[in-house]
């Protein structure tokens, strides 16, 4: 079974802090994704990475950056957390053999910025 793990289930940070959210997958997937989930808005793509050190912006990259130094690990960074970044953050991974390979999700990190 594919396993995607996220470093924290719940996180509380103060405005202005630098925040790191970590995601690790164990299936040697090339593609990894960070989404933000908010009530009534579904999932919105922040960034994705299709290879080590490669990244592409999603629909809402502002205020976020990412890092992919190793294939299995994809980090989301909030350089200076703000209250409007309070949300559920979901990481996902996917193989490369076309659309048959669905995305596999981690359990999520619920981030609260006060």
């Amino acid at each position: 079974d594919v396993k995607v793990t996220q470093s924290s289930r719940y996180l509380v940070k103060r405005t202005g802090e630098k925040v790191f959210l970590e995601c690790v997958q164990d299936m040697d997937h090339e593609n990894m994704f960070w989404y933000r989930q908010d009530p009534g808005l579904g999932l919105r793509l922040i960034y994705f990475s299709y290879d080590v050190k490669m990244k592409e912006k999603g629909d809402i990259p502002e205020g976020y950056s990412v890092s992919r130094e190793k294939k299995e690990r994809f980090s989301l960074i909030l350089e200076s957390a703000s209250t409007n970044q309070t949300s559920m953050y979901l990481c996902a991974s996917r193989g490369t053999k076309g659309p048959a390979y669905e995305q596999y999700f981690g359990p999520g990190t619920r981030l609260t910025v006060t």
Partner: protein
Amino acid sequence: AQSVTQLDSQVPVFEEAPVELRCNYSSSVSVYLFWYVQYPNQGLQLLLKYLSGSTLVKGINGFEAEFNKSQTSFHLRKPSVHISDTAEYFCAVVGGNFNKFYFGSGTKLNVKP
């Protein structure tokens, strides 16, 4: 560009009743369609997917969905729901760039005893 609409934000239903969760999509290219389920405090789990072939797709936990190209719909159905089906359900479409999934806003299914 692709987009997904889930018109019902919440669907209350009694246990053992049938349910249909609606999903409509728009796309200018061939699409691949997915339904995911999210149980409380968990990530998303794949229920079923349509890639090609038969338009009726069967998934886990007794769910099925029908792809209707003319109506651009991919509604999810279950003939008899259980309390444990209480969760949020997301429809998603991917096309063209296979890495770009477009998710609907979700439908919360609340199964009552």
